[in-house]
């Protein structure tokens, strides 16, 4: 297994710890006993590996470090968000006192400077927390750059601004291994494609949200991107594509399942609502099956959640006014239990199938 990034390094370190714990158990139970030479070789090898990972990727070497890491990640995100917002307010506080030339120069300089600073920080910071913070600020500066240019020169708002934002976010995401900016980039892509589809249908681009079907083409395309573009060098990057694709597909369906008037289809609203309810249930069930078959855990989890939401909103429609509230929530709870039994059976069947495949292979 080649180690290209922090996630791979952390996984390898965790495997080493698990191996050490299991080896101790086996020795205690008398199943396996390494001699002194073998033990020394394994320990030295593992310690060398862990040291190199710590130096190159700043991994968590134990559970305490892991807990602190989580705290650092949350702090990094909150700090980045606060700094990004402060950039906006800082500019708004002073920009009125600058001439147009100074305003434009400041905007461009801020975007360039924060971008270059981010790359410099990435070289110095092996943990990635500070680089993530700087990257978010750089993204905020670039967004501010375009927004303020529009305001200064009274430029007509256009969906085309979403493209460079997406490109910048994706550039930073792939260069610095940042999934948060990957998500930001993908959201910009979805918004742009939805706005374009809306424009082609004749509506004003900013109203694209009023026709939820505008999101479908982008959602379907995004789901298949990891299939056609190899993401093995970028651990954890394929999942956001699938998660966002599923949300962009099924959340609009959920809206249409309750608001048929928002559809392009020339049918009665009630018919459209029933159609999308059926599509929602069938689609999420299909996605669950697909996720299990292809071992996409995130697809299964998101699809299960969406399936349950579809089910609960439908049950609300049917029974909220008909039943006493205690009975309604009791039925919801029992339905959840039933679903748990179903998923447990699916899980057991999946495990059996996997073990059968391994037996055949061996």
């Amino acid at each position, binding site marked *: 297994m080649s180690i290209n990034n922090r996630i791979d390094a952390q996984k390898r370190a965790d495997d080493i710890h698990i191996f050490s714990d299991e080896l101790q158990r086996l020795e205690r139970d008398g199943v396996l006993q390494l001699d002194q030479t073998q033990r020394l070789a394994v320990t030295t090898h593992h310690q060398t590996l862990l040291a190199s990972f710590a130096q190159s990727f700043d991994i968590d070497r134990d559970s305490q470090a892991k807990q602190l890491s989580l705290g650092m990640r949350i702090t990094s995100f909150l700090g980045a968000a606060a700094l990004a917002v402060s950039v906006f*307010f800082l500019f*708004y*506080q*002073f*920009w*009125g*006192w*600058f*001439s*147009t030339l100074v305003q*434009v120069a400041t*905007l*461009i300089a801020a*975007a*360039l400077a924060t*971008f*270059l600073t981010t*790359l410099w920080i990435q*070289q110095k910071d092996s943990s990635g927390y500070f680089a993530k913070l700087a990257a978010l600020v750089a993204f905020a500066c*670039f967004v501010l*750059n*375009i927004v303020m*240019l*529009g*305001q*200064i*020169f*009274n*430029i*007509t*708002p256009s969906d085309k601004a979403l493209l*460079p934002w997406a*490109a*910048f976010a994706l*550039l*930073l995401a*792939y*260069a610095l291994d940042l999934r948060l900016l990957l998500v930001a980039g993908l959201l910009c892509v979805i918004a742009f494609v939805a706005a374009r589809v*809306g424009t082609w249908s*004749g*509506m*004003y*681009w900013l*109203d694209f949200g*009023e*026709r939820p079907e505008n999101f479908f083409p982008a959602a379907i395309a995004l789901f298949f991107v990891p299939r056609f573009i190899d993401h093995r060098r970028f651990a954890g990057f394929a999942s956001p594509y699938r998660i966002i694709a599923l949300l962009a597909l099924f959340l609009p369906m959920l809206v249409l399942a309750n608001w048929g*008037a928002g559809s392009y289809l*020339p049918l*009665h*609203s009630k018919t459209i609502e029933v159609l999308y309810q059926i599509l929602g249930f069938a689609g999420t069930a299909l996605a669950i099956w697909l996720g299990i078959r292809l071992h996409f855990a995130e697809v299964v989890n998101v699809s299960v959640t969406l399936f349950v939401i579809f089910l609960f909103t439908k049950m609300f429609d049917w029974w909220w006014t008909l039943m006493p509230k205690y009975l309604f929530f009791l039925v919801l709870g029992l339905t959840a239990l039933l679903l748990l039994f179903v998923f447990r059976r699916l899980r057991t069947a999946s495990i059996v199938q996997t073990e059968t495949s391994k037996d055949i292979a061996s």
Partner: protein
Amino acid sequence: MMWNRKRTVIAGVALIMGVNIFALAGVFFNRSGTAESTLKLSERELTPPRWRDNKEDSGLSLKISWRVLPPEPIAKTAPDKNADDYTLYPSYSGESDWLNESKMIALGFDPSSANSRLDERSSATNQKTRDVMLVLQLNGSAYETALKRAIKYNSGSKENVKMMINERDKNSRLFVIDAGLNATTLRTAYPDRSQYAIVRGQIRPSWNADNKKKLAGVVSKLNVDTLHVPLKLRHTFDGASLILDEAPAAKLVRYEADVAFGQRLEPWITAATRK
């Protein structure tokens, strides 16, 4: 192709500079040559935002205050207090006689779908807002009509008198009077570039108040309805009042600004003076 740090730097810098150059090139093109139109707008048509006291924003933007002339049938209602008051309210967006079914068809709206969805809700909301070209008229026939109505339907009540005075001294004289899909065609119909400006805006479908099966339209907004004031012109607008409804006409800060509309129909302030 191996991606490395050097390529990242080049790509990022090229993206930032490229986008800025593209945007500024568009601005330069818009402001090049002779302006498509230039209107002299006063404090009645260019109003400061209501949150002017916001200390977090040092910039100054003025809102283009535009109106439509509402349909005459409201004014034809038998004189009673409610009808008069309704007639005298300045209509800042809404329906107008010129935005009838034939105009909506010319703009690309489909009248047949107005009846295709048999819902309780408005069937015209089946179609969404469209981007069109709008014709703005400054201090022309539309404003004269609005002023005549204010005088004609002034019942003498304190409210009506105030509304009549507002119409004469404070309300915007900038009216949307026509719409189309082609700026050249509209300019041929309205050649006076000092009284008529062609801008991009939005129209949404509605239904005729008298006949719910007939398609009508509502001018909902201009695409660019806020103008940034550059630093060199800021002093002209110092002290401009926010709350025009409450400020007496005599206490208003009066100013006049030349607003040019360029090749892309985007506006900017070229000059401004205090009156």
